């Protein structure tokens, strides 16, 4: 039977004694929940845009620092039409994906090895942790000395950046599967393989997934970093070129694309994570 704490939202709890369910009421509710947040979200640009327009029109700040909105729009369209944006985005995405895949493979293996084998963990983890203290970004100059400035550098940096959080979270996920569940497996005389397949891995998946999410974020950051220093194509290159030519509009376009891609991938992964959270067994 329902108690007041399981019934819907505060609106239900504190609403009128009689709740209208007619079509008009439903439309009003839909409007309030679906449309109004969007209207609120438009307040900020609605106020900012006229100021931007006025400011750029009357030259309150130099053109390079405050370009006209029309120019930015024009650049965006131009870059889309000429396929330039698509090309740069494609190259960046390709690098990220390649690096991420490699980093995931390395991270999962390393993390699993450390998680499953006490011995391996003892030998490897201290060094690994020490290296992890240095942000991936910091390694770039060293990597440039060793690998030059070609494609290898980029893929390797991205892979390394992704590998670290993936390995750490995989290890943590495997090690933190509660003893109690492993013991249940023991009472059913599970073989090592069965334990791994039926208890440890499923239990570790939420952590592994968190690691993948962080790995992707770090991979992105690494991509932008390397492309900032050592590239002649890609979104990071667009940023650098725009900055060198003082074309703020180009820089803005590149930033928006980077933000959009980040948003899409993050949302996607968040949705998948939501599904996985349903069976977290560490009680979190």
């Amino acid at each position: 039977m329902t108690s007041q704490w399981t019934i819907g939202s505060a609106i239900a709890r504190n609403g009128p004694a009689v709740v209208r369910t007619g079509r008009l009421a439903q439309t009003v509710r839909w409007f309030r929940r679906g449309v109004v947040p969007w209207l609120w979200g438009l307040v900020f640009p609605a106020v900012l845009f006229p100021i931007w327009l006025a400011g750029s029109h009357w030259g309150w700040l130099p053109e390079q620092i405050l370009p006209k909105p029309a120019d930015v729009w024009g650049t965006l369209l131009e870059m889309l039409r000429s396929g330039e944006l698509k090309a740069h985005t494609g190259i960046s995405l390709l690098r990220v994906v390649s690096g991420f895949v490699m980093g995931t493979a390395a991270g999962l293996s390393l993390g699993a090895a450390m998680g499953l084998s006490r011995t391996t963990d003892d030998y490897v983890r201290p060094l690994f942790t020490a290296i992890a203290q240095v942000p991936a970004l910091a390694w770039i100059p060293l990597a440039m000395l060793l690998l030059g400035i070609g494609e290898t550098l980029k893929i390797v940096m991205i892979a390394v950046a992704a590998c670290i959080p993936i390995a750490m979270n995989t290890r943590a996920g495997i090690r933190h599967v509660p003893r109690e569940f492993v013991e249940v497996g023991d009472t059913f005389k599970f073989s090592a393989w069965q334990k791994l397949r039926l208890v440890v891995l499923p239990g570790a998946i939420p952590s592994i997934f968190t690691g993948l999410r962080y790995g992707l974020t770090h991979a992105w950051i690494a991509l932008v970093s390397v492309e900032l220093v050592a590239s002649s194509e890609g979104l990071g290159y667009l940023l650098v070129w725009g900055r060198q030519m003082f074309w703020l509009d180009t820089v803005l376009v590149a930033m928006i694309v980077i933000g959009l891609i980040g948003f899409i991938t993050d949302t996607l992964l968040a949705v998948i994570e939501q599904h996985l959270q349903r069976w977290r067994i560490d009680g979190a």
Partner: protein
Amino acid sequence: MSGHLNVQHISKRFTVDGGPIEVLSDVSLSIRPGEFVSIVGPSGCGKSTLLRLLAGLDHGFDGTILHDGKPILGTSLDRGIVFQEPRLFPWANVRQNIGLGLQNAPLSAAQKAETIAAHIGLVGLQGFERAYPHQLSGGMAQRAAIARGLVNRPQILLLDEPFGALDAMTRGKMQVELQRIWAQEKITMVLVTHDVDEAVFLGDRVIVLAPRPGRISHIFEVAAQRPRLRTDEGLVRVRNEILLALEGQGPASASTGRPDRDLLARPAA
């Protein structure tokens, strides 16, 4: 006389997935000043909802509730409440938590300190003034919550299954404590519980609610002497009557955990 509650034809509905559910339907009740009223019933009978309406925490109901003749429009310092969880602020120690109740009280700092100390003594937590909630046992935390509920010297104290989360032995001790505090403070108390033994041990009257829709099904007077003895014959008799009444509502409504041999052995008087 202060501390009089008059509940007149209360109804409350919720909407769940499109359809309305009537949690309380035409409930009327009068609680005398200084009385101890216990409310029992199975899950879903609306007893907690009723208590929250008395506190002024929830709104949107049909009917009127009068506190000393004035309609209840929201919470008030004259109506204290103790929840099932102690709900102590984790970042404050016992003394500060109780002191929080006096934030808006028209007392001087010295008076506040005095009454806080008095209430700590009342619930028997001397020595624990500087302890943080995470350092307290369940029973001690609830005692602190009771002290906080009383620190404003409200006319009415409402208790929503305050001992439900405690183990059986602590619960028994807390019931004795609560009776002592009630006798000492002489204020109106309304207790919601699913434990029939607790209800008869503490109450002057026991209101039995039935679910779907929530309504009063029986009112029992408990005429036993105070301080109460759990083995008192009159007490046991009323208890059995209440259990029968709950049984009559349908399966799985009575809950004391005791076997039903009592019911068969002693016919209702």
